[in-house]
């Protein structure tokens, strides 16, 4: 379904969707973050990319898996805690972040479907915003099979046409959202369709960063496991978790028991994000650590994204959002690391 909505009517549309929990990027100091919309009057879609991607809504950093307790009779009880199935809409999802969710879908799908993830995922509609101008100077989606107006993973893609939005729905979830405010939407004219094409073509040209010959990287990395390259590249790494926590595709997690009472025992089993850059991530109880240093951990991060994931799911585990580059405390640049690896020894 392809429609056009005047910008002024945007808040009205949002108002019509009141039965949904709605998220929109909101400015907080110098950065943007997704928040629940409280007042639809003061919303707009003019924003840079958020610090954390919508991953944090679908796969929250903290999630209770189950509760456990012993009653007075010392009987142990466990209680499954699934997220509430609240119908939600996330507005303004950048195409790279939407694509990232199609990648975490692969991880949380497969033989064991992750019920916590899918409860949220299935009840959430993603309304994307095409990047007419790149929201970050480090955007490089074109190099990893993405595009600033890709529809992958989205239910609706909105494109800013100046005084109006072009909105295209690709799924039933998307159609439902448009149908709730039918009167506000018009069919696009031939000129508007042409404008859209023009904007899309131009948006690609505005992306400043790229990886050349990305395809050559996975086979090259396969032979670089034992290379001293990783020692050199990781010299300035400080072992923080920014690159992976901010990554829209990173999905690693930890499971811990949080006890609120020790006698009688009462508590929750909680899943939290975890991070392959932390030393204790892979450390065995014995103290043995298969990835003992930052070189091994940087290698894991790069290989996971550009070799292992490619072998497993035929996709890069990177959508080119540029967060890890922009926020790395010491300027480690994944584009540079990959290009150096591609050319290493040749």
């Amino acid at each position, binding site marked *: 379904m392809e429609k056009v909505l005047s910008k002024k009517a945007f808040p009205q549309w949002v108002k019509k969707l009141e039965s949904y929990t709605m998220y929109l990027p909101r400015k907080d100091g110098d950065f943007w973050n997704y928040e629940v919309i409280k007042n639809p009057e003061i919303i707009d879609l003019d924003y840079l990319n958020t610090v954390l991607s919508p991953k944090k809504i679908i796969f929250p950093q903290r999630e209770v898996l189950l509760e456990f307790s012993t009653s007075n009779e010392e009987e142990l009880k466990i209680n499954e805690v699934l997220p509430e199935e609240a119908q939600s809409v996330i507005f303004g999802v950048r195409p790279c972040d939407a694509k990232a969710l199609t990648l975490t879908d692969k991880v949380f799908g497969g033989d064991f479907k992750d019920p916590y993830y899918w409860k949220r995922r299935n009840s959430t509609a993603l309304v994307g915003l095409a990047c007419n101008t790149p929201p970050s100077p480090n955007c490089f989606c074109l190099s990893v099979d993405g595009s600033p107006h890709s529809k992958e993973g989205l239910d609706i893609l909105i494109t800013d046409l100046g005084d109006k939005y072009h909105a295209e729905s690709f799924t039933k979830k998307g159609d439902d959202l448009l149908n709730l405010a039918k009167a506000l939407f018009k069919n696009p004219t031939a000129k508007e369709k042409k404008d859209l094409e023009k904007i899309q073509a131009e948006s690609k040209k505005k992306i400043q960063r790229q990886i050349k010959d990305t395809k050559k990287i996975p086979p090259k990395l396969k032979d670089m496991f034992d290379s001293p390259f990783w020692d050199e590249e990781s*010299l300035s790494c400080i072992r923080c978790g920014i690159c992976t926590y901010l990554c829209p595709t990173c999905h690693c997690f930890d499971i811990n028991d949080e006890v609120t009472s020790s006698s009688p025992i009462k508590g929750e089993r909680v899943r939290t994000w975890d991070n392959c850059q932390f030393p204790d991530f892979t450390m065995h109880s014995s103290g043995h650590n298969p990835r003992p240093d930052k070189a091994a951990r940087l290698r894991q991060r790069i290989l996971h994204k550009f070799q292992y994931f490619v072998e497993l799911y035929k996709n890069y585990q990177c959508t080119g959002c540029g967060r890890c580059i922009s926020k790395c405390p010491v*300027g480690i640049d994944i584009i540079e690391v990959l290009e150096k690896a591609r050319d290493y020894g040749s």
Partner: protein
Amino acid sequence: MVNLEELKKEASQILKEGKVKYIIGFQRGSNGLLPVPAFIKNPKDVEKLVWDPTCVYNLTLFLQDEKRKKTKEKEPDERPVGIVVKGCDSRAINVLLQEEFIKRDDVYVLGVSCENTGVLDEKKLAKKLKGKKAKKVEFGANDDFVITTEDGNIKIAAQEVLAERCLECKAHFPVIYDVLIGEKTKRNVENPFKSLEKIESLPPEERWKFWKEQIEKCIRCYACRSVCPMCYCDECVADTINFVVTPDTSAEEKAQKIKWLEKSPVSSENFVYHFVRAIHLAGRCIDCGECERVCPLDIPVRFLNKKLEKEAKELFDYDVGFDPDKPSLVSSFKDDDPEDFIR
């Protein structure tokens, strides 16, 4: 004015003479305005060294890696590491010496004076430039920065785009060095704790609201810990395995280790982490401001450290990082330390 060529010459010479095993400095990166750390072994590569207002990093952080590496080597190279430091960074060296984390012979300090200015706050600059992209930032002749943008050069008074900590810096020049590049320019800082006033003057409940909002944002990426040259503990209460495990560590030891805080990034747990970080840096934080710069969520963590720096000064007349031979803040006391708060 600091002469970069002088720095390069010195660096090249000590490498050629074999005086140092390598030099940690700044070089241009592949992305953005900020440089990246350089680890230079070959005298030829000293050409890569840069010095400009974007050299924000406190490179003394990398002395931790050096030390860890050295303890693993059977026959370590005992030569010092050359390291480029600013005034604040040099105070970190003093603290590391004071705590005997390093020895004086472990480092060859290439001190660079910030003279009348300091380093850049990228965010302040971005606001000033209103969307224009800076390509290069250099020290100007009149305590200003020269910014190269797409449409030519702009001069901005350094004061307007300096990092907050530079505005409150007590010594713009290295206080310990083997070579000093630039001059020991004295500048009077009226109130080195001025930036704290805004929060301090809030009523307690407002202050609580402010900090709760900030600390709640924390995603526990631990970048503030990782970037800190003083956070060199092998064990940290914040980690799931919060101590060094060897094959000899017994199961009991591991099982009985207290889990001081949960991994969940909720207010109560985040506060424990940030309190521990702050208190552990009391009398040790040299205010390089790196913790705050790297925070992806813009949590003003520096204000926690700065507050304790202020209290150390006011209650105990303690200055951090000026004298490596002085006992540290919390391993010393005076008979007349204030005790009006004690019953």
